[in-house]
């Protein structure tokens, strides 16, 4: 994937995560911030993120791959999306 497209995707996912999950203005989220293991996103809330990714990037992520580890940072999510974009 082109560098520009990759950065655009990262930014888009980061924006979604902040809008969907972060209520507190004091919280700063980066591409590396652990989302689930740090308690920002609980595992029950992942379904929205999954639906967002599938709709936005026109992909289908199998439930077995939508693990807390795969969703634990924006970088991990981008890697996951890339696997299915390239298929």
């Amino acid at each position, binding site marked *: 994937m082109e560098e520009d497209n990759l950065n655009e995707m990262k930014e888009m996912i980061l924006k979604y995560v902040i809008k969907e999950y972060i209520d507190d203005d004091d919280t700063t989220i980066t591409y590396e911030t652990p989302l689930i293991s*740090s*308690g920002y996103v609980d595992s029950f*809330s992942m379904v*929205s993120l999954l639906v967002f990714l599938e709709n936005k990037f026109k992909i289908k992520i199998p439930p077995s791959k939508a693990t807390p580890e795969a969703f634990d940072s924006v970088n991990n999510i981008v890697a996951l999306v890339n696997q299915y974009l390239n298929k």
Partner: protein
Amino acid sequence: MSYSEKTKNLYLSQLTDIRNAGIFKEERFIHSSQAADIEVEFPSGSDLKRVINMCSNNYLGLSSHPEVIRAAHDGLESRGYGMSSVRFICGTQDLHRELENKVTEFLGTEDTILFPSCMDANAGVFEAILTSEDIMISDRLVHASIIDGMRLCSAQHDTFKHSSMEHLEEKLLLHSDKRLKLVITDGVFSMDGDTARLDEMVKLCEKYDALLLVDDSHASGFIGKTGRGTHELCNVMGKIDIITTTFGKALGGASGGCVSGRKEIVEMCRQKARPYLFSNTIAPVIVSGVLKVFDILSASTERRDKLERNAAFWRKGLTDAGFILKEGNTPIVPVMLFNAKLSQDFSKDLYNEGIYAIGFFFPVVPNGQARIRTQISAGHEMHHLETALEKFIKVGKKQGILGLTKEQIIEKFGL
């Protein structure tokens, strides 16, 4: 023996991790009945200390009420100690059904089923009424027992931002293709003390054809003008499909819980809810006590009215003194300290001053939102509250936080 040294060390290492994380829980032994004044042994082995209890769920002061105790004695004498059976074999007495009818009448629902606890009610209800074709949409701050219940259920799950009706509506739209949609909330949120916006939730559920479940454990008996709960407060009695609640807090404080609501949903629980099917229900002695509690509450609103006055006094006193409180209109009054260590030091100082109130921090509450959670009771007399307020102010001055903003406290103590 299969408990090898390796296995033992595995657990010891995990326990050390819990200690190092500062979240190791220690029990404090109370040598008296549950009340506003209690005698506590803490740490274990130390002399008894008489303290004012500011952290129990004994909202109506009924845990040690003489009429409730007498009724429990009567139940013990007339119906025995235990049932030695689950409900559907030979574990149902007339009193169990009488209590179910009484709860139904009190909450204004169609039917009720008892569970050994509200934890069990929440563990059983979801899998009894939903399948993988359905979706559960819960407020992000619901109680841990609801989270566990949802985990045991094959339905899909999603969440909405705490009390955000806009976000809930987005989620109802997102999942409009599901067979059944169940919206789930606490009535009163136990850590923040705020109440769910049930009137708006009912409207949204009607608009999007969703069911609504409310856990009213921190509300039943005292929220609303006659204490029916948050559905009374929000003028939506008869419109909540499922209410789960406990007898382990305001309603006598012993144990037991229930699912109350639509007749068919209650019947589904009776047929399918595993904690009901595979565990004894509430013991006769407790059923008798809870029946008396409902008699007391149906005869007069005096206790919930006193609780409301006490909570208003306490909230105003702390606010005037310069503490930061979570906004709310319930007897749960969280004093915000933000820093985890400060919350522990503050609790320790209070205890030394004769006030029993616990500090909570991450992961029990969100990171950077450590607090002392105070809980007011109708069992508190004005002298209890005045003394507690005086001691809170003394410790607040010692820690130098009175009148400070959130930012100033964080600057002083860190997050």
